[in-house]
């Protein structure tokens, strides 16, 4: 599926496009006039030095922040104001830079929480935990067990996640996002703070998710090796401005990118 180089690596139609988006907090401009698109089935990386506005961009995409200017079109629909709940409903799932799990809950319950929007039994039946509510629990539990197998975390499913090592927490968080059966999966530094072995595992999971479920993935990552290996296309931000956009090879050779990462003599 991954085309070998060339400008036309795009896999499918545009799934989400960001047009001229600007976001500022008070007087601080986090993102200015950024445009790019994410195509169906690809792995898209957003990279850039610290403070480049990568996480802000992700937060805009899933509705945590509302950009002051610009438009976002997802699945052909340009949205006005969107809240995180709507994003989740529309099929956007995400993980967080500093792992945001439900710490008191078990790994299993965390991943089950990802099924929230897929479950519909009414409040009444849930109060009784009988009939439709119980059937639904069982049905969704099966799906969650598949994800648990896929991520190879069978042994820890009953452990409260607060007690798990960091690498496994990241994996549970990925599981929770996958449980939403997202069309677009946003990963905010999925390998941050991991050792080499964990990074390799996580990279494999990212590729497997993309292959196996056909999920479109957008990830922020610092490790350039990982980015170059994983992604189909890369967008580079620096100080909130887009400085490059293209295949890993193109980006690597781009003078502005080299400047941003290594610093240029003034």
């Amino acid at each position: 599926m991954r085309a070998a180089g060339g400008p036309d690596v795009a896999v499918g139609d545009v799934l989400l496009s960001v047009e001229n988006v600007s976001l500022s907090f008070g007087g601080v401009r986090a993102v200015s006039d950024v445009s790019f698109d994410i195509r169906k089935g690809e792995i898209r990386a957003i990279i850039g030095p610290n403070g480049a506005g990568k996480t802000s961009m992700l937060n805009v995409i899933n509705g945590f922040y509302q950009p002051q200017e610009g438009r976002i079109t997802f699945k052909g629909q340009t949205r006005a104001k969107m809240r995180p709940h709507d994003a989740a409903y529309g099929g956007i799932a995400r993980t967080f830079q500093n792992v945001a799990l439900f710490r008191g809950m078990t790994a299993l319950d965390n991943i089950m929480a990802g099924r929230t929007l897929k479950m519909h039994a009414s409040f009444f039946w849930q109060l009784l935990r009988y009939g439709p509510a119980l059937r639904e629990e069982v049905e969704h539990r099966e799906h969650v067990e598949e994800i648990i197998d896929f991520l190879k975390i069978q042994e820890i499913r009953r452990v409260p996640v607060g007690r798990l090592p960091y690498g496994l927490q990241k994996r549970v968080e990925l599981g929770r996002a996958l449980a939403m059966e997202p069309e677009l999966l946003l990963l905010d530094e999925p390998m941050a703070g991991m050792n080499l072995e964990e990074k390799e595992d996580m990279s494999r999971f990212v590729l497997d998710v993309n292959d196996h479920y056909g999920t479109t993935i957008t990830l922020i990552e610092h490790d350039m090796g990982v980015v170059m290996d994983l992604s189909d296309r890369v967008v580079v931000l620096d100080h909130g401005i887009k400085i490059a956009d293209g295949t890993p090879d193109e980006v690597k050779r781009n003078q502005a990118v080299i400047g941003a990462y290594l610093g240029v003599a003034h």
Partner: protein
Amino acid sequence: MDILYKIFLDPFVQMGTAPDLFVQTLWEGVVGGMLYALIALGFVLIFKASGVFNFAQGIMVVFAALTLVGLYNAGVPAFLALGLTIAVMFALAFAVERIVLRPLINQPDIILFMATFGLTYFLIGFGEFVFGGDPKVMITEQLYLPKGTITYKALGGVVSLQKLDIAAAVIASIMVAGLAVFFSKTRIGRALRAVADSHSAALSVGISLEQIWVIVWFAAGLVALVTGIMWGARSDVSFALDVIALKALPVLILGGLTSIPGAIVGGLIIGVGEKLWEFYWGPLIGGGTDSWFAFVLALVFLLFRPQGLFGERIIERV
């Protein structure tokens, strides 16, 4: 020596020689403790899901009871009045989310805490305005709650139990068990716990905070209604009840702010401890220990176990 004997030995000798009195006191303590536990439970529900310390929980108990009795006195049949009161508690939850919580989202906790003070005074004023300030009698008979006492000849004496208290214990236990299952085994229950742990993560999986807040405030309102009926049946329904609601604070300190089992166990410890202390040790210092025992016990707990019996341990990483 005499004083030491009176403090450390005599009470236990009394307990041993008159077991019927001991059991009777214990039972009274359990019943009182259950009501404390129910109020604390209302606090915990809201605190867990929204991080708001709801000062108005005590008043919600009175307000619920007052609405029920007020509607009945206005000529509404008892069970219809009960249904309507439930609807009123839902409307209250909905209004609180819209008018109080939503505009104050992302504000510091202390602001939300103060807002619940405002809610308290609003409910007092509104309740008095609509239903009048005079004490009212709870409609226990009309709701088919049992009356009278059961007397056992046992333990070399007589133990008498109010049927109403037994009914209260049964209803409270069923409600708590139901809540426990609901919280641990259902989608909404999971969503509630999820919100308690991390707002942003909960949002990212599509949980709507607004909806969850309405649900917890409604749940706390239902707990308040049950508490109000039980409590109103033992004394009468008036705003004087809310002073007793302050007893829920030591219960929370004992049990931990975030733990439902903690609220139950804490309530029972305070209820039973209070009654036993008053009965066996009270006479030594002239009685009247009910009003302070709970708070002193809470103070001792704060010294040695500030997170409470079941609360989450507070660990700060530097």
